[in-house]
């Protein structure tokens, strides 16, 4: 007890300003937490038949989530086949967890990803092994968010590396081109490019060439975040001491080998915290595909809230989706801190 008092004194009341801040925060918590707990847990209803019944108790209406969670997560994917997107989500999470373990960073990890993505493709599309074919229009909800985010980031990364190198290139034409690309993309909102990809792009493509909407959005998404990722990587490149370039040159390594073997392995490590920040932003940006008619998590929950039985369950629906986003983003952010600590050790 004495120890606890000492700790509180040393950490929370060590200066007048800190004491004041502590009291303010305590007051804030006292005002918000009990009502929230009361609403979300004590008076919440998990079994009501509709939103009106929920209102009787005056708490949160989690029964809405219970009724609609499958549509929120998997959207219009055929109901009896929804184990397929569910397994897809599990595979994605397993792949992401495997990639986060540094001991597994090896060529085998790339093989694992390729196998994983092939399995995901088979599961989602179907058409073989007795799985009914499902068109990409019906890939909704969480799998859609994950597919957009993961493939978008994966495709953007090599492009971003090239853009970052190009922006520092000694060849003026290459440099101007890269600067132009990066600044154009960064100078306009993502939604503009989404509309261009989904509405304008088909007008310019030949009649017989149709790219499914999902892949158009995915390509636009990758092209868009590549500009941001490129700027992050450029920061890492600029932090490299000149001596590293000179030593690599003096050994007779050509440009691409200097970059691949000496410069990028170091510059990318420096960039990790900022890269993860960019990826978290990109993950959340996938929600914008709603505006061009995709049924991602956000659109799915909106559909649920329009159900006459549950009209009004906005807070519950958005809280559920927010929680899903939060879990993924929080994991990414924790992971970047862990990785920073790992990589700075022993150097």
């Amino acid at each position, binding site marked *: 007890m004495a120890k606890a008092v000492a700790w509180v004194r040393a950490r929370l009341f060590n200066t007048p300003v800190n004491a004041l801040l502590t009291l303010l925060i305590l007051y804030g918590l006292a005002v918000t937490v009990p009502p929230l707990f009361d609403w979300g847990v004590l008076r919440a209803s998990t079994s009501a038949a509709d939103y009106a019944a929920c209102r009787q108790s005056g708490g949160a209406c989690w029964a809405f989530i219970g009724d609609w969670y499958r549509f929120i997560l998997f959207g219009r994917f055929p109901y009896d086949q929804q184990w397929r997107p569910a397994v897809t989500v599990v595979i994605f999470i397993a792949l992401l967890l495997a990639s986060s373990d540094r001991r597994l960073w090896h060529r085998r990890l790339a093989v694992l990803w390729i196998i994983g993505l092939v399995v995901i493709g088979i599961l989602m599309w179907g058409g073989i092994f007795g799985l009914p074919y499902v068109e990409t229009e019906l890939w909704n909800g969480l799998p859609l968010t994950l597919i957009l985010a993961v493939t978008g980031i994966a495709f953007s990364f090599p492009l971003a590396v090239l853009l970052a190198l190009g922006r520092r290139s000694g060849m003026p034409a290459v440099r101007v081109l890269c600067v132009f690309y990066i600044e154009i993309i960064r100078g306009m909102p993502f939604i503009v490019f989404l509309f261009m990809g989904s509405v304008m792009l088909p007008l310019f493509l030949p009649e017989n060439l149709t790219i499914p909407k999902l892949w158009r959005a995915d390509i636009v998404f990758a092209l868009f975040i590549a500009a941001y990722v490129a700027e992050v990587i450029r920061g890492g490149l600029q932090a490299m*001491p000149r*001596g*590293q370039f*000179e*030593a*690599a*040159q*003096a*050994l*007779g*390594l*050509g440009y691409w*080998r200097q970059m691949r*073997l*000496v410069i990028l*392995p*170091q510059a990318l*490590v420096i960039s990790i915290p900022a890269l993860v920040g960019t990826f978290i932003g990109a993950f959340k940006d996938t929600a914008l595909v709603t505006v061009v008619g995709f049924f991602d998590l956000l659109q799915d929950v909106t559909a649920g809230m329009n159900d006459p039985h549950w009209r009004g369950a906005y807070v519950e629906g958005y809280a559920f989706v927010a929680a899903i986003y939060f879990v993924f983003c929080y994991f990414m952010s924790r992971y970047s801190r862990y990785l920073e600590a790992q990589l700075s050790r*022993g*150097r």
Partner: protein
Amino acid sequence: MSELSHTAAGDLPMIELRHVHKWFGAFHVLNDVSLSVRRGERVVICGPSGSGKSTAIRCINRLEHHQQGEIFVDGIELTDDIRQIEAVRREVGMVFQQFNLFPHLTVLDNLTLAPIWVRKMPKREAEALAMHYLERVRIPDQARKFPGQLSGGQQQRVAIARSLCMKPQVMLFDEPTSALDPEMIKEVLDVMVGLADDGMTMIVVTHEMAFARRVADLMIFMDRGEIVETAPPAEFFSAPKSERTRLFLSQILRD
């Protein structure tokens, strides 16, 4: 391309600079520098800071480019042609003041990188070669460590071994002991003396005059971008012709 084919060896200089000029903006950093180094010759360049001595040797492997004059290395002229430049860099080793080891690679990987990727040597062979040179600089037991775990003197010896793994015709040293604590200078100089005794062609920018007396065939004093004096060490230290050389030597040899 004709320059790429080696002209019959003989007395052709290993390195030749003819009337080289270079400017950093308005600053005339190299002013009509001419220099000829024969195979097996050891040249020590000294001079006050800002005299252009580092820039001069950095021109020899084109870390800096000259704006006037000609530079030949083993008969290959340094031009903007990247193939010529890379051909020269394969034959010219360089040791830097700040070591410039690759911190993300182990000592062994630092040494095998260029042999494997530039010389296309099989990994096993490259590692045997690397261990040979690590023994030569007397730190074979550090092969699996990362550069950051070594002392400055050890890092510089690794850097020398890394250059030697490319079996260069010439070694350039750019103030190799200036960043070292005094007690580590000797271990690096000992390695360099050993190299000189084996007949390596060397150009060394340094203020270590005892080392210079011991190994140099030729002393060069540079000041304000010019070669002020060129002489064998005996003459250079006992009877410098130029007043500027005399002043510099009196300052550097005071203690």
